[in-house]
């Protein structure tokens, strides 16, 4: 009996093939390396990997578009600037310990020294704010329709790239070096068709899980 398209028999191929475009993965089971926000849908300000985040939205989000994955750089990648800040905080104390050495050359009032000290700590606060901003807004989003990469590499520089899921051909990850293996983070590459731009999620946490979820969404093998 012909179907509604007028086709029958061997002409009907993949009739029962499920729609992969709008497939949303279920939250994964909690593992030893997962952060508390993983799999719960609840996203915190320090979350770097969240499946089905419930309270995040983005510019140009369509009404029926659902965020499946939120990916930021792994938290451990913030360690260098945090260590730098901790060192910078103690520098005025070190200088004050040797202040007698400078006294013959510099004769600045206590009031000026206080203003300079406050200014110094304000600069450190600004440094923390900028570094955290760069980490917080450099985010990769995988929705049930597309992949979006927000790349903020400077306070005045942002790049937003996106591609539809059906244009994604391949997704791979690399994890080289002992630090990346210990803390389980790596670079994820999303290869798109033809001349479209390829995507890179830099230093993403749990890359194997992310690759598996994206592969599921584009209809690839588990």
């Amino acid at each position, binding site marked *: 009996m012909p179907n509604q398209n007028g086709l029958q028999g061997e002409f009907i191929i993949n009739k029962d093939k499920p729609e992969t475009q709008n497939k949303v993965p279920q939250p994964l089971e909690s593992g030893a390396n997962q952060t508390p926000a993983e799999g719960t849908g609840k996203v915190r300000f320090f979350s770097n990997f969240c499946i089905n985040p419930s309270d995040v939205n983005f510019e140009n989000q369509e009404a029926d578009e659902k965020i499946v994955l939120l990916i930021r750089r792994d938290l451990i990648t913030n360690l260098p600037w945090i260590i730098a800040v901790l060192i910078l905080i103690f520098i005025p104390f070190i200088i004050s310990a040797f202040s007698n050495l400078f006294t013959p050359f510099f004769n600045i009032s206590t009031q000026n020294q206080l203003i300079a000290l406050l200014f110094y700590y304000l600069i450190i606060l600004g440094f923390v704010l*900028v570094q955290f901003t760069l980490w917080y807004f450099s985010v990769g989003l995988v929705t049930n329709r597309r992949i979006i990469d*927000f790349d903020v590499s400077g306070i*005045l520089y942002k790049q937003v790239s996106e591609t539809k899921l059906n244009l994604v051909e391949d997704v791979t990850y690399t994890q080289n070096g002992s630090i990346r293996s210990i803390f389980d983070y790596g670079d994820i590459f999303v290869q798109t068709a033809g001349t479209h731009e390829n995507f890179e999620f830099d230093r993403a946490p749990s890359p194997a899980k992310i690759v598996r979820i994206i592969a599921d969404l584009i209809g690839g093998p588990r």
Partner: protein
Amino acid sequence: MEIAQLIMHLFSDQNTIARIALVILIAFYGLFALIVAIQINNLNRVINQIGFAAIFNLLAFLHLSGALALLVFTVLFL
């Protein structure tokens, strides 16, 4: 002649030189803090994490307020 003497007086005093340098540096920093606050506000519109966006804006505003307060304090006691 008096102007020259005034300039000589200003620049012979390390305290005054330090204060002028601080005013200039803090003014530039205030401009930077303003740009950071505007950018954070803009980026919060691009991707909005409900619950933290407001706190983020508040932090940026406090940073800007701190820079402006320090500038006013420095200028007032010049």
